[in-house]
């Protein structure tokens, strides 16, 4: 059959355009929200005793007197070129400030993801395979139990067990840029494990639900009636058709690993973006807050975009049109 022009490039381009548009809208929202924060950087930096004159001079120096829209456009223009400006608190370029931190956060997220994604998909498949069995119920309830605790609580329990009592891993995950990979992995093991425990339940349950949905379909019965093994039916017949929902939930959780780890970073004193964000909000260091938020937003949008595209590519009707 002469395959007609695939609609995929068009669909992917449209998703990309929507992603870019979302990012611009989000950047405006971030800018506006940061404007709304009470207090001013000038009083925060110069102290309560600052005179009106020094405050005015400070504001003028950093262009804080310009109209918000003008500052937004200027900020966005520089941001797309990779220049987030200067930290008001430390006077260092934000790019330098964020670089290491962002790397640390992405490293931790990747660390957790490499463990969590395969484990939860596998657990989901096992649970779906023996639906209603003791094993299925055990997997479901134990992952649910873990997710029901606040993440800082999970973190402290892990510290109590693995750092304080067993002493296998340090309780403070103070990674440094000069650290070797092995040491880095050891030092950041506990925060990574905390995050694995937090995201596994969601991904596992979604995998299980997606597969169980498919198991009632005639082609699964057909595979059974062809004498195929149960495990093969789940992994080879059902899983490829469940890619889209699974990838969507995986992407959401990966995004959460990057964006939602503030508490975990704080508990383990891990030098990541989340910590930086919390510190900067406290110091009213607006350009840093904006930059960090923008990175978070971009991550979220990008991951969801990738999930969308994989979902499209996993649909044979779109990949192989009539």
């Amino acid at each position: 059959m002469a395959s007609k022009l695939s609609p995929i490039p068009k669909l992917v381009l449209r998703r990309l355009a929507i992603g870019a548009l979302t990012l611009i809208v989000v950047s405006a929202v971030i800018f506006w929200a940061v404007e709304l924060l009470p207090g001013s950087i000038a009083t925060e930096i110069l102290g309560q005793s600052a005179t009106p004159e020094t405050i005015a001079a400070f504001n003028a120096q950093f262009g804080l007197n310009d109209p918000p829209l003008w500052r937004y456009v200027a900020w966005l223009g520089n941001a797309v070129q990779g220049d987030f400006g200067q930290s008001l608190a430390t006077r260092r370029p934000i790019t330098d400030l964020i670089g290491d931190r962002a790397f640390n956060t992405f490293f931790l997220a990747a660390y957790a993801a490499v463990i969590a994604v395969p484990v939860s998909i596998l657990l989901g498949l096992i649970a779906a395979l023996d639906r209603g069995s003791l094993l299925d119920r055990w997997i479901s309830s134990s992952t649910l139990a873990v997710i029901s605790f606040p993440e800082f609580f999970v973190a402290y329990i892990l510290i109590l067990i693995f750092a304080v009592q067993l002493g296998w891993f340090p309780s403070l995950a103070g990674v440094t840029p000069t650290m070797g990979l092995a040491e880095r992995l050891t030092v950041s093991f506990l925060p990574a494990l905390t995050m694995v425990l937090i995201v596994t339940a969601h991904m596992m349950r979604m995998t299980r639900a997606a597969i169980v949905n498919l198991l009632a379909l005639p082609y699964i019965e057909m595979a059974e009636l062809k004498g195929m093994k149960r495990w093969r039916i789940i992994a080879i017949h059902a899983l490829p058709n469940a890619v889209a929902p699974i990838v969507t939930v995986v992407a959401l959780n990966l995004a959460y690993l990057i964006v939602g780890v503030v508490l975990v970073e704080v508990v383990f004193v891990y030098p990541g973006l989340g910590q930086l964000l919390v510190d900067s909000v406290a110091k009213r260091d607006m350009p840093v807050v904006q930059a960090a938020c923008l990175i978070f937003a971009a991550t979220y949008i990008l991951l969801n975009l990738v999930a969308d595209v994989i979902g499209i590519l996993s649909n044979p009707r779109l990949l192989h049109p009539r």
Partner: protein
Amino acid sequence: MTKLLEIRDLWIEGRSGDDWHKIVKGVSLDLARGEVLGLIGESGAGKSTLGLTAMGHVRPGCRIAGGSIRFDGQELVGASAQTLRDLRGRRIAYVAQSSAAAFNPAWRLIRQHCEAPVCHGVMPRAQAEAEAVRLYGEMRLPDPDQIGFRFPHQVSGGQLQRAMTAMAMACKPDLIIFDEPTTALDVTTQIEVLAAIRDIVRNHGAAAIYITHDLAVVAQMADRVKVLLKGEEVEDAPVREMLANPREAYTRSLWAVREFQPAPRDPAPASPPLLKIDGVDASYGTHKVLENVSLTVPRGRTVAVVGESGSGKSTTARVVMGLLFPGAGKVTFDGAALPTTIGARSRRLLQRMQMIHQMADTALNPRHRIREVLGRPLEFYLGLKGREKEARIRELLTEIELPPDRFIDRLPGELSGGQKQRVCIARALAAEPELIICDEVTSALDQLVAEGILRLLDRIQRERGISYLFITHDLATVRAIADHVVVMQHGRVVEQGDKDRIFSPEHEPYTDLLLSSVPEMDPDWLSRVLDQRRAAAS
């Protein structure tokens, strides 16, 4: 002949809530090598359930409560999963009703074909693929070398059904279970699939269980027929014997719908037609689905629109109802042009035209009791309230032959398929319309139930003088109910005229093809038609 399959006193139960009810009640069955047994009955007769147990398979929520199933001397009741897996696909194969759903949408056809032979270790992949191409050719699929490399959504329904039969043959099984393999197909496609299935089963000397609700189809395929009713055997006889001399009244009733003849009517009145469709075009997006369609519906008469799926018959109904904007042409109702969109039509106009859908199941809100279902149009169109409304609901229920006291407070889920369709008819009648569009209203129903619906529609027409635009693919239904027939193909009207004229010889080649493809009770019908077509082609 040696016995291949021996089922003795088999009981199967299905669970509903906490209760187990019996689906198959002590049925026995024998099948010799190379023999084809037809299993026939209405939905709920337990024929699919029985057919699947021949593979040792029961659907989730069901269980074997007693009896024995011996395949080639081996007991399948209580056999290990490993034993059953080893038989399935290799020695017993299954052909499902909906091939579109039974093929994995993510796999190419040939990969699915080769799965059983390769996994069972019958032959290596390369040989299995070569064999697949040969079987595709044997099933008369176009382009057998290439068709296996398509995905299921890339081939038509009839081709897919043939590909599935080819897949069932992949390991050269001793027994094949055909579960209504042609029920979802159009008649013109069905005849080719039937011929291909019959030949391949014969050529390979396989035994088969052929499950269907259509006696005329089973007459072509089977050596012997077993009739089931509510899980029990009614009759078991060689096919010719059963057709010539059915022992049980129930067996005879199975072809009731083919015998239904409405009371003769006066010739069509001279009054102007109620509905007139004139030169209508319509498209979905850029895809043109109707081209220059014209037809008229006289008052108090039934016009049947007949054609295969995709011929544009339902689209015509959508245009009339104002659900689809026609690109060209005019629709006139009672002498006045109809606004093209439903939003532009007055309530009075909406009231005069009602519609009944194919799936009564999805056309009724599952949370509305029958009182609400019928009360709504009475309130909306006629402004009836309180006691008046209640009285009218009861009248309507009486009219559709459902005792009001028993049915008025039921939910749709507490009704059978035929009863649901009756409620849909009552809902249409509640508006006191002049025209009812019936879109395949009997297609989802068993023949006996369908016949009841047709009788009801016929009676209502005689009493109320309502016109029907009756959309169907089933020519037996057309023969039973229509005054006037419109034959459609590829979005065009091929031929139209009075029923007697359409059903008499001498018409358009397509009408011919359609009419000659309707299976007849005669067991030699399939061979005869194929011979005639071959002769005509050469």
